[in-house]
């Protein structure tokens, strides 16, 4: 087979040499034969004549030989292509419209497919990625859907579950890296020794971590070793050898590089370059820390041949064994505790999957509209050529020939359109990046690549074939109807073709309607989310993150000193109204939840414990953030003193625990099981609730604001409200911090209003895209409407002329056509209504405070589609009303 293709290809590429060789061979044959005949006694003239007679027609022999080589098909194809190209060039309006339609729809599909492919389909770049799972603790009835996995979970499961061949834990964090004065906050990931083995990624250089590296020694510092990615080595360590044994200065300590990951290694969406051992002490490995929710995550490799369900059963069984001795077992069970085993990719992309699938559906709808539109344009053209086709068939043209011609034309057009679509798709991917697509999980490598290009070419081919079917059918029908006259409404073929065109238009209208309604729902939902009160006043508030390294800020006092001096310096800045620090800010992307014990509160039987959003604040955090006081008093700078146990709670908290009011004065304790001697906090005030997890999050879990002086977290946000220039304040914040400690960078500097904006990205971008799709869909439908109606008018010129001659008024003719268009619109609208109903329900999970059937949206979609489409049919209708009566006499 291959050698055959090679022979054909060779002949094609060396076509001239092939033809010359063939001619020479035949000439040689004739000459030899002639000579032999002369030798046998014939006269030269006689010999030459006989030779030619016996050889037969030279041209036929050459033709047959060429065909035997398989070249004729190519010749025909070339001819057909040239013919099709000529025909298409002769109708620039049709060709341009069809090509633009294809380019836009294929391009849009390509761009969306590239994302969907990268995020949902492409296998993870690890060995046998299907066997990788994430295992996380969930307490759904306590309001904590995903609490990761604890260090205890890891040490208990490590070799205890038969269905898991390798179990690992990882925890994302940050460290201050670099020399004094040039430090940078670097994101790092701490992992257990078998982490890379679980993933199936061998190190490129060096060796992995050992169990000894994860043991907290007497000094509370684990093995000072690191594994870096090739990218980190290249960008930060000079890229040259020797890399092993090199030291990185991290949090003021020397960390030795003991291993390098292979080029291109990336753990899911993480771009972290430094991996450290995840160290722990015996206290955090014991049963008491099992549900400590230490913001670490578990991945594991499933033994080959086992299903997820089987492994889930093993994990459940293991959990029930270890929980048996847990004093909190009843409470944990009430919270709906389970450890879920979920394929690694699914966990990573769960949040974006519905949105992406919705967009993919929308863009496929767009492709369908484009396809239908081009088909309709083709049908119109085919009808206008039906006389030609009928004539050719009457003269004996082969059916196959007609089909081949139609196919060549449609394929040439869709392939050209597809190639243009490739360019449009490349531009589309850039647009998607601008809309934040590369921030989607696993979309870091989002690119225009061969896979996407192949998908586009295949789609164009399929489209070309799909378009050819109805057109070929119509072209052949025109013959069977036996009409050599023009298509008129009275012939069966004409009627069938018209029905088909109208049916396609109805489909188009319906799809456009569904897309309009869908994008309208997304837009309305976005609108509703932006109207949500975040619970604070985000304008003119700057926030930045500072992580105090453990090594230089080991005790609470040193941290408090730093915080006090920083806040003092900040409040001295011109324009600063209030400043404070907090361990978390709303919409930071981090929605840590923690348990709390409320004195005197006894949950009704079966009512699970409830987690809250915990904060530890210092300075004038509430005034800086603009969180309103509801009852009692705020925590302010006067509360900044060691051991101050005052707390402020939010309305949601007060409403849940003190439904009759009077929260102030009550006592709370951290954790679900406070030990004797743990501080008892007194509620001094109630503040408004903020949206911590997202504007559209209606969880209302409640929040407790402790004083920083009782928590001393080393990772804080600094917040300042200014009346002046926020950019200048950002620079000042960095400068002041460096003045206090040259080692400390401020990271994640952002206006609170930008945080609000960014939190809307996952809603805004899909809504914008859907709007773009819907606009294109409406435009395409209008083009389709114009084409179909314009063709109807052209078809009925004689009839209209006759009616005009018989006294019809232009207005009557016009309204007849507008009426036809309106009927098509209404039919399409009704089908679309059913589609919109289904779409609304399918996308309900993505909507915020918007019903799946929204009458205002339906009405708006109807008006938009109606106005645009009727406008599109005004021109042809008007043209119809201007047809002079003399047309009645014109030759058909």
């Amino acid at each position, binding site marked *: 087979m291959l050698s055959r293709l090679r022979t054909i290809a060779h002949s094609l590429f060396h076509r001239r040499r092939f033809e010359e060789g063939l001619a*020479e061979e035949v000439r*040689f*044959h004739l000459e030899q034969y002639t000579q032999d005949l002369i030798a046998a006694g014939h006269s030269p003239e006689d010999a030459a004549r006989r030779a030619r007679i*016996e050889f037969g*027609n030279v041209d036929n*022999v050459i033709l047959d030989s060429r065909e035997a080589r398989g070249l004729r098909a190519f010749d025909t194809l070339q001819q057909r292509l040239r013919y099709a190209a000529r025909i298409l060039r002769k109708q620039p309006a049709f060709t341009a419209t069809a090509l633009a339609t294809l380019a836009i729809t294929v391009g849009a599909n390509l761009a969306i497919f590239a994302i969907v492919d990268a995020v949902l389909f492409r296998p993870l770049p690890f060995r046998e990625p299907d066997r990788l799972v994430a295992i996380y603790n969930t307490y759904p009835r306590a309001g904590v859907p995903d609490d990761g996995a604890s260090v205890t979970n890891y040490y208990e499961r490590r070799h205890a579950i038969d269905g898991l061949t390798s179990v690992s834990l990882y925890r994302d964090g940050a460290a201050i890296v670099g020399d004094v004065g040039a430090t940078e906050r670097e994101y790092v990931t701490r992992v257990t020794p078998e982490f890379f083995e679980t993933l199936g990624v061998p190190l490129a250089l060096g060796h992995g971590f050992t169990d000894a590296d994860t043991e907290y020694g007497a000094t509370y510092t684990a093995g000072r070793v690191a594994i870096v990615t090739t990218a980190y080595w290249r960008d930060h360590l000079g890229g040259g050898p020797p890399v092993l044994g090199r030291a990185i200065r991290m949090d003021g300590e020397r960390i030795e590089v003991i291993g390098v990951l292979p080029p291109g290694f990336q753990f899911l969406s993480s771009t972290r370059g430094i991996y450290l051992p995840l160290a722990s002490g015996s206290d955090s490995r014991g049963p008491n820390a099992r549900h400590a929710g230490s913001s670490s995550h578990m991945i594991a490799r499933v033994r080959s041949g086992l299903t997820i369900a089987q492994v889930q059963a093993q994990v459940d069984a293991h959990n029930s064994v270890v929980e048996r001795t847990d004093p909190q077992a009843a409470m944990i069970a009430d919270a709906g505790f389970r450890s879920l085993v979920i394929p690694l990719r699914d966990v990573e992309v769960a949040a974006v999957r519905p949105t992406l699938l919705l967009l993919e559906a929308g863009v496929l709808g767009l492709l369908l509209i484009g396809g239908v539109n081009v088909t309709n344009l083709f049908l119109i053209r085919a009808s206008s050529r039906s006389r030609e086709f009928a004539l050719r068939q009457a003269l004996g043209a082969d059916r196959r020939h007609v089909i081949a011609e139609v196919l060549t034309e449609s394929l040439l057009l869709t392939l050209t359109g597809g190639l243009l679509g490739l360019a449009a798709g490349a531009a589309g991917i850039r647009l998607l990046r601008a809309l934040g697509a590369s921030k989607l999980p696993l979309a870091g490598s989002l690119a225009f690549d061969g896979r996407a290009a192949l998908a586009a070419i295949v789609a164009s081919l399929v489209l070309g074939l799909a378009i050819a079917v109805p057109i070929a059918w119509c072209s052949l029908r025109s013959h069977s109807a036996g009409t050599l006259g023009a298509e008129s409404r009275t012939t069966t073929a004409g009627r069938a073709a018209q029905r088909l065109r109208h049916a396609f238009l109805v489909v188009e209208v319906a799809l456009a309607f569904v897309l309009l309604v869908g994008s309208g729902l997304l837009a309305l939902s976005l609108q509703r989310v932006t109207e949500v009160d975040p619970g604070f006043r985000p304008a003119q508030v700057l926030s930045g993150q500072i992580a105090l390294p453990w090594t230089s800020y080991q005790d609470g006092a040193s941290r408090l000193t730093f915080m006090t001096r920083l806040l003092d310096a900040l409040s001295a800045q011109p324009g600063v109204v209030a400043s404070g620090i907090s361990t978390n800010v709303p919409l930071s992307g981090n929605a840590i939840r923690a348990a709390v014990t409320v004195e005197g509160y006894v949950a009704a039987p079966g009512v699970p414990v409830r987690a809250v959003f915990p904060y530890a604040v210092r300075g004038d955090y509430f005034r800086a953030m603009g969180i309103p006081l509801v009852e009692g008093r705020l925590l302010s700078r006067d509360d900044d003193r060691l051991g101050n146990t005052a707390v402020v709670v939010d309305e949601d908290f007060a409403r849940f625990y003190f439904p009759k009011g009077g929260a102030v004065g009550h006592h709370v304790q951290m954790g679900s099981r406070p030990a004797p001697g743990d501080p008892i906090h007194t509620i001094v005030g109630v503040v408004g609730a903020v949206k911590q997890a997202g504007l559209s999050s209606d969880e209302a879990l409640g929040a407790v604001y402790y004083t920083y002086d009782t928590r001393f977290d080393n990772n804080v946000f600094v917040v300042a409200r200014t009346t002046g220039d926020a950019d200048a304040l950002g620079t000042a914040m960095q400068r002041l911090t460096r003045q206090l400690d040259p080692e400390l960078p401020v990271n994640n500097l952002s206006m609170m209003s930008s945080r609000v904006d960014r939190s809307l990205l996952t809603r805004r971008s899909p809504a914008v895209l859907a709007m773009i799709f819907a606009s294109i869909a409406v435009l395409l439908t209008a083009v389709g409407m114009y084409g179909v109606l314009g063709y109807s008018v052209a078809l009925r010129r004689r009839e209209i002329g006759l009616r005009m001659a018989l006294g019809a008024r232009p207005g009557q003719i016009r309204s007849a056509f507008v009426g036809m268009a309106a009927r098509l619109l209404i039919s399409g609208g009704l089908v679309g209504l059913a589609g919109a109903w289904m779409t609304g329900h399918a996308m309900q999970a993505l909507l915020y405070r918007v019903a799946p059937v929204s009458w205002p949206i339906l009405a708006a979609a109807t008006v938009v589609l109606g106005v645009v489409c009727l406008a599109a049919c005004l021109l042809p209708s008007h043209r119809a009303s201007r047809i002079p009566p003399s047309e009645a006499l014109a030759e058909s």
Partner: protein
Amino acid sequence: MGKSAELLPGTLDLLILKAVSLKPLHGYGVLLRIHQISGQALDIPQGSLYPALYRLETQGLIASEWGESENNRRAKFYTLTAPGKKRLREETDDWNRLAAAMAAALRATADEV
């Protein structure tokens, strides 16, 4: 060219393969060789020779190369390829089986029925 038998359909390819299996030949030579080895009994229509040669070459059963003819003219010589050899063997077997079967069938007498 004397009395010649009609060529059975499908036998031309087999004859060409046989002819070039003995020695590389140019197109005209193939014609002469078939005439010669069939004892002047088989005469193939000259016009159908070249399409058949090109078809066999496309199928990879024979290969061609330009060379010099006996009288020092440039000519294209055909040789049998390895797949061609295999095909020749198979088709020869098939043909012999068929010929034997045909002969046996045509020998049959009333007694044997």
